[in-house]
């Protein structure tokens, strides 16, 4: 029953997506815009189908309906409810089901958000592209990754449950959906970019339409990556959080290009420049999400994240090629329309620093992509099995990260177009003071080594610049000084600083020791006393957990353990972590208690400031949320809302301000002025109206 119903829903989803795509293309190509209404009806059917399929899967999991192939692979009557719910995305087919569910959610949100402009070809093409993507993923579900295949199981069959590593921590229930919300969320700006290319409306209108969608997707991806690192740290027992694993890299790649885009898009909105670059970044970001999906789901790489090999690999690779080819082809086709009207007036300017930021993020993306795909290409070429070690990624990423931190310090205080020495000296004074102080304090506290000390200094510089902006904004605008793209962005910057300082400390001053302890014995590591109190075990029908009670500094007792998941026959070392503001103490049971004398091997890892990494990630998410709220609303006469350029007005007077001349306090060189934000009200893009003037497209 569940098999038939579930398959019915995914077949319906495929049919609706295909018909919606085809109908949309016909309506738009033939100019019969009234037909677009039917396309939107298909989108609702896609939503119904994806929700229905997901609900059926959850019902099957909770009913332990092993006649559904997916449930027989990942279901188990002994799995706790939360992990049983999360089992829906713990394996290949289910994860694709979650993918289409989220895509359908975004599709519905787009249609609702733009419901008053449904005959606009830009929106029509965007929805068609999203439906096309949806059709591809539904096709995977109907074909090679069908989770609803009916299977016969013997009486009394008991499923193995999800991978033990995926039912060991709450974060595992949260991390994948967040990551998917980010991955899939980039479909929306990508769809609008393709629509803009097809319609030729490659000006700035579509950017403003998709600004918040992009920021939201970026925020979800950020949180997904941070939670993934946190899960790895809390669960995998190796004492680390980032291994430059290919699947980790795959999630980082769209984040890097997305981050570059979020910055460079402001240059286009403000100056009409970087049109090709921004379109390329957005298309690259979406393509990289598909590449990441390929790496995770093709079985190409062996990783804790990777699902088993399946027939979906070639299909995903083909889709990646189609998406990349289509993007490049359309950008090439529209090349003449994408020419930018201006150039960067001075390198020391806001747009100059955003350009530098893009070069840094682009370079890092190239480094990570090269390192990730090179072993695959080498193996495909002549069968050479290569591994690319951490030193490559570390040695390339560190200097680029320093450049990014430096740019984070200067970009927020730089005015658009050109900065005078006077302006810079006033605006950079306090950030520089913070930088010097943080570097001095770190040296006094014993920090050594080029990168960590530089990170503390540049981190202080960047934090000072961001804090300055927030202080000025709140002084002027009250609570609104925390919201809007610029102000929220500064909160994100503060989060990045916390994260960078945490990473530099945790990586540079890590210490470790493995000690052998008998019951009652005490070992001292880095000034902390570890007393082995007693061994213990708890058993249920799902798992056998062996632990050692370890008292730290005579205070709290921790229980590092090993868990044997009986159904899977897999043993997982589960660390116990004492998290603190300044350091984490990470305990791993390296060897279970000796049957003769209960002696254990205890691995103690002490890493400073790990909590700062998680706090930084959460602050970045908060900043993203604040950036999504509309910022200060400007009057039309205010400088940054003034029309950037005005379309020709037949027989009318020339515009008063056509992107020339001083337009803001910054441009006039007022050094005490806050940085002019980029928070045009929601949708208040300057768009050409029917009378040839700019109009507010909010309505």
């Amino acid at each position, binding site marked *: 029953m569940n098999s038939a119903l579930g398959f019915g829903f995914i077949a319906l989803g495929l049919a609706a997506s295909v018909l919606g795509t085809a109908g949309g293309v016909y309506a738009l190509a033939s100019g019969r815009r009234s037909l677009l209404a039917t396309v939107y009806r298909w989108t609702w059917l896609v939503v119904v189908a994806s929700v229905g399929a997901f609900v059926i899967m959850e019902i099957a999991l909770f009913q332990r309906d092993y006649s559904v192939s997916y449930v027989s692979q990942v279901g188990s009557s002994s799995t706790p409810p939360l992990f049983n719910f999360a089992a829906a995305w713990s394996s290949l087919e289910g994860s694709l089901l979650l993918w289409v569910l989220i895509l359908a959610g975004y599709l519905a949100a787009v249609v609702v958000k733009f419901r008053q402009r449904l005959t606009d070809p830009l929106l029509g093409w965007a929805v068609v592209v999203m439906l096309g993507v949806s059709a591809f993923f539904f096709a995977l579900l109907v074909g090679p990754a069908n989770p609803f295949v009916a299977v016969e199981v013997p009486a009394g069959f008991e499923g193995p449950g999800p991978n033990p590593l995926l039912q060991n921590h709450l974060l595992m229930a949260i991390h994948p959906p967040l990551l998917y919300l980010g991955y899939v969320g980039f479909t929306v700006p990508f769809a609008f970019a393709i629509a803009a290319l097809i319609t030729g409306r490659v000006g700035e209108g579509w950017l403003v339409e998709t600004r918040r969608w992009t920021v939201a997707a970026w925020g979800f991806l950020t949180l997904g990556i941070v939670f993934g690192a946190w899960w790895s740290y809390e669960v995998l027992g190796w004492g680390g959080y980032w291994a430059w694993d290919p699947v980790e890299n795959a999630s980082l790649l769209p984040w890097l290009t997305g981050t570059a885009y979020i910055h460079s898009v402001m240059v286009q909105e403000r100056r009409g420049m970087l049109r090709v670059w921004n379109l390329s970044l957005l298309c690259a970001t979406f393509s990289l999400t598909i590449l990441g999906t390929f790496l995770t789901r093709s079985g190409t790489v062996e990783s804790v994240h990777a699902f088993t090999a399946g027939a979906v690999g070639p299909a995903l690779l083909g889709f990646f090629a189609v998406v990349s080819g289509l993007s490049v082809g359309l950008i090439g086709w529209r090349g003449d329309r994408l020419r930018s009207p201006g150039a960067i007036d001075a390198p020391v300017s806001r747009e100059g620093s955003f350009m530098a930021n893009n070069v840094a993020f682009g370079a890092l993306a190239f480094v990570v992509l*090269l390192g*990730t795909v090179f072993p695959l290409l080498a193996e495909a070429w002549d069968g050479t099995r290569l591994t*690319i*070690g951490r030193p490559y990624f570390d040695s390339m990423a560190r200097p680029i990260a320093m450049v990014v931190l430096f740019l984070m310090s200067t970009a927020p205080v730089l005015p658009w177009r050109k900065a005078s020495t006077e302006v810079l000296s006033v605006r950079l004074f306090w950030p520089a003071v913070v930088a010097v102080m943080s570097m001095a304090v770190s040296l006094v506290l014993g920090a050594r080594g080029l990168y960590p000390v530089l990170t503390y200094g540049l981190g202080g510089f960047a934090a000072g610049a961001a804090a300055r902006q927030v202080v000025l904004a709140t002084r002027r605008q009250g609570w609104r000084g925390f919201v809007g793209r610029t102000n929220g962005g500064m909160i994100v910057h503060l989060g990045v600083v916390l994260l960078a300082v945490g990473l530099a400390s945790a990586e540079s001053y890590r210490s470790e020791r493995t000690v052998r302890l008998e019951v009652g014995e005490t070992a001292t590591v880095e000034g902390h006393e570890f007393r082995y109190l007693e061994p213990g075990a708890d058993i249920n029908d799902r798992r056998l957990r062996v632990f050692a009670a370890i008292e730290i500094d005579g205070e709290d007792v921790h229980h590092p353990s090993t868990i044997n998941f009986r159904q899977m026959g897999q043993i997982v070392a589960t660390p116990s972590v004492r998290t603190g503001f300044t350091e984490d103490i990470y305990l791993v049971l390296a060897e279970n208690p000796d049957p003769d004398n209960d002696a254990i091997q205890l*691995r103690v890892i002490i890493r400073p400031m790990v909590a700062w990494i998680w706090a930084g990630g959460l602050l970045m998410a908060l900043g993203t949320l604040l950036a999504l709220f509309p910022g200060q609303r400007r009057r039309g006469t205010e400088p940054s809302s003034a029309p950037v350029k005005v379309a020709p007005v037949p027989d009318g007077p020339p515009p008063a301000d056509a992107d020339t001349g001083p337009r803001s306090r910054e441009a006039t060189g007022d050094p005490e002025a806050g940085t002019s934000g980029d928070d045009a009200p929601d949708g208040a893009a300057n768009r050409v109206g029917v009378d040839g003037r700019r109009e507010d497209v909010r309505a």
Partner: protein
Amino acid sequence: MTTYDPDTVVYLEDQLQQLLASLDDLDSEYEAGDLEPADYESLKADYTVRVADTMRHLEEQKVAIDEGRRYTPRYVLAIGAAVLVFAVGAGFLLARAAGERGVNDALTGAIDESSRQRTAECQELGTVQGQLLEALECFDGVLEQDPENVEALTYRAWFLVLAASSNPDIDPDQSQELTASAEVYLDRAVEVDPTYPDARVFRAVVYDRSGDGDAVCAELDELAGLNPPPFFAQQTEAMAQRNDCVG
């Protein structure tokens, strides 16, 4: 001066199409007798003016496109050279960090190994692969994070002893210096864990080479008290005899 804006071009193109279609409609309606000649002339003139205006603005936009920024060959070359230098640098580092992928190796990156795992790798570097210098650097890396790693302290010392004795080109002063350094590491290892037999054996060897028979015998006594595996007794038997150690 008109500034190029792609959205304006699309708008003007749409407008032009609509105006031309309206002109066609106008002709049809006039031929059908729906319009008076005067109205027809007036409307046609109005539409024609608007078509001309729109075409003029489109032309201005096209001129503006042509006036858009063009990259000079020097600029393109400079960017190309910078990208090339960066790519070569990345390629060089990639080649340095690339290695043969074993059965349990990841495609890229690696998790942080425990100091015990890394110590074993350092030992392998020195003993199996004979790369003493690399092995010493490897131990330094372990000791940086785990300064009391008794195995790393012990085997770093032992590789120093090997470096002092196995290299024929080394002068006696250097050899003595290396041995003295090894002794410091061994002392530290014994201090951290007095029950670790390997450190005792290696320290006995160092004392033996420096001709301090009493110290050798004292060290071997300590070793015997640890009740080590028979292997250690076999290894140290000749040394004990040479130094007339009793028991």
